[in-house]
């Protein structure tokens, strides 16, 4: 294995951790609404939602490169399909968690939560790309996907 592959892995991990450290700023840069954002912050959702946004794309990338890992599923659009599913699944889980926490607190921000999760698709997609480029190099069949080495 090449040294640069480890550099890609390290950069991927660093980017992911940086995203988690700067999660509040990262999310408020793409979506911030008076009232909703404060409740989101106080309810600890700026801790939970980024974790989901990290976990789902990293798991999806891991499944694609190491569980599926098939020559019949190694084209760029196969990777895009998995990325699309991950990018859709992340806000769906996030919305369910968000609504559950808000319901426990007696809050009702359905429309705002939905808009937030739509915006969160941006970060979910970014995380999938980051995870893919961090881990693809050791896949026996899909390491050339989406871009050949």
């Amino acid at each position, binding site marked *: 294995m090449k040294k640069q592959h480890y550099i890609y892995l390290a950069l991927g991990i660093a980017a992911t951790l940086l995203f988690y450290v700067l999660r509040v700023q990262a999310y408020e840069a793409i979506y911030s609404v008076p009232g909703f954002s*404060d409740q989101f912050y*106080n*309810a600890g959702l700026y801790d939970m939602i980024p974790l989901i946004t990290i976990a789902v794309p990293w798991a999806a990338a891991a499944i694609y490169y190491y569980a599926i890992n098939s020559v019949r599923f190694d084209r760029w659009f196969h990777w895009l399909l998995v990325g699309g599913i991950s990018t859709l699944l992340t806000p769906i889980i996030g919305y369910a968690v968000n609504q559950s926490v808000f319901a426990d*607190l007696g809050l*009702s*921000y359905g429309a705002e939560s939905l808009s937030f999760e739509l915006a969160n698709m941006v970060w979910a997609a970014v995380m999938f790309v980051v995870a893919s480029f961090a881990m693809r190099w050791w896949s026996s069949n899909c390491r050339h996907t989406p871009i050949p080495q």
Partner: protein
Amino acid sequence: MKMKQLIALLMPVMVALALASCGSSPLDKAIKHALVQQDTTQAQFDSICAIIRQNPDRYSQYVDKQGQVDVAQLQALIDRIGGDLRPPMRWDIARYGQQELSLTIYFERSGSMVPYDNAGDRGQLKKAVNDIINRFPGRKVNINIVNDGIYPYQGTVDQFIKDRNIYASTAGVGNSAFTDFQQIFGAILKAQDATNVSVVVTDLIYSPADAGDVSIDKILNEENSLATNIFRHYKGKSVLVHQLMGDYNGKYYPYTNRPVEYRGMRPFYLLVIADTPVMDRMAAQSDYAELLHPAAVRHSYRFNQSEAAVDYCVLPDWKDNAGRFRVDHHDATRLTKCQADKTTGILCLTIAARLDGLQKEADFLAQAGNYKVQSASGFELRVAPITPDMVTGNNKMYLDGKTHLLTLTGKFVGPRDQLTISLPNELPAWIGQSSSRDDTNTAASGFSTTTLGLKEFLDGIAAAFGTGGNYTTLTLNLEN
């Protein structure tokens, strides 16, 4: 090999998850939950203390040398967690674990007080005193009879409450022909300790001995000087004056000391005296509501009330809001990105504030004219009490515990403005309106609602303590 690689690659995700799941302690979580849910009660405080007691090693910094919860350290933690919330929240736990207060009633038994408690009338005076005793949360209650001096009540508290004719059963106690304010207030102030609350039940009519041939001006000037002289030595005390009305049926003693029969309403007063920190402590606790806001109170005023900080926050989303602004996440008094409405040029924002701790009457707090607003943008103020129907799940965090909405409307053009709302502490108009300089004519129109020399006496107290300043000041910094 593949499996190992997979696990290695998923490590960052697992580490992040682990970091998040153990990021804050159960104590931090419990405090944050209490603040977010606005569940800042004694029960919640007790449950937080229980967390500390269950794990004293882990939370050793919150346990003092005696093994008790260190309230000061816990307060610091609560302040830190509350300061990180949006808007920043406060929970004053200093009152928990404080020493119990005692209550001492000084029940005036001068000749002019007896007609307040006739068997055939409604007995508002006795009811007001009974209510204070019954609703006082402490267990230590003493009762004294006062006129020319202070005399301990010979019965028990239960007997006092049950007594249907308190003036008959205390007949012969002291000299009811005159009331010596200097002796009474001097003795009360001198004897009072840091955990005592004294309540003087009186008609506040100064009736010194040998005043028959003295002019009313001289008597009232003497009363004024006397009040100042008594209280000026006790600048650490606060005096809360409640005016109530009661049925009066019997001999009234004007300053000329020639009694006349009178039947009708008359004002009487409850003077609550305590150290200023004790008065502030009671104001912060609903347990003392009857003492600080008696149900039948007509007017109130607290002397020696220092300026207090009140909880307030700007409502980020409210029906009256116009234009745009953003509440700074780290400083709830700073509004950034302020922009007036494009069509009207108006910026309108609403503040939710908790004003009940100021011990002012509801009418006083609800009148915008009692507030002073300063800003370069000419903001105007509207005030409305918060009613239960205004509170929804989404705004509960902002409105819970708050009592009034202060809506400010102005033509903000920027780039910056400082908006200051203050509630000036001035002697209220009711004092002058409830005072008379001649009480010889009981048929006069204002007789039933006025007290001889009330203004002079209370002006004397005000001179002793000094007046002015504000009850509270709220400041917002606006910028675009």
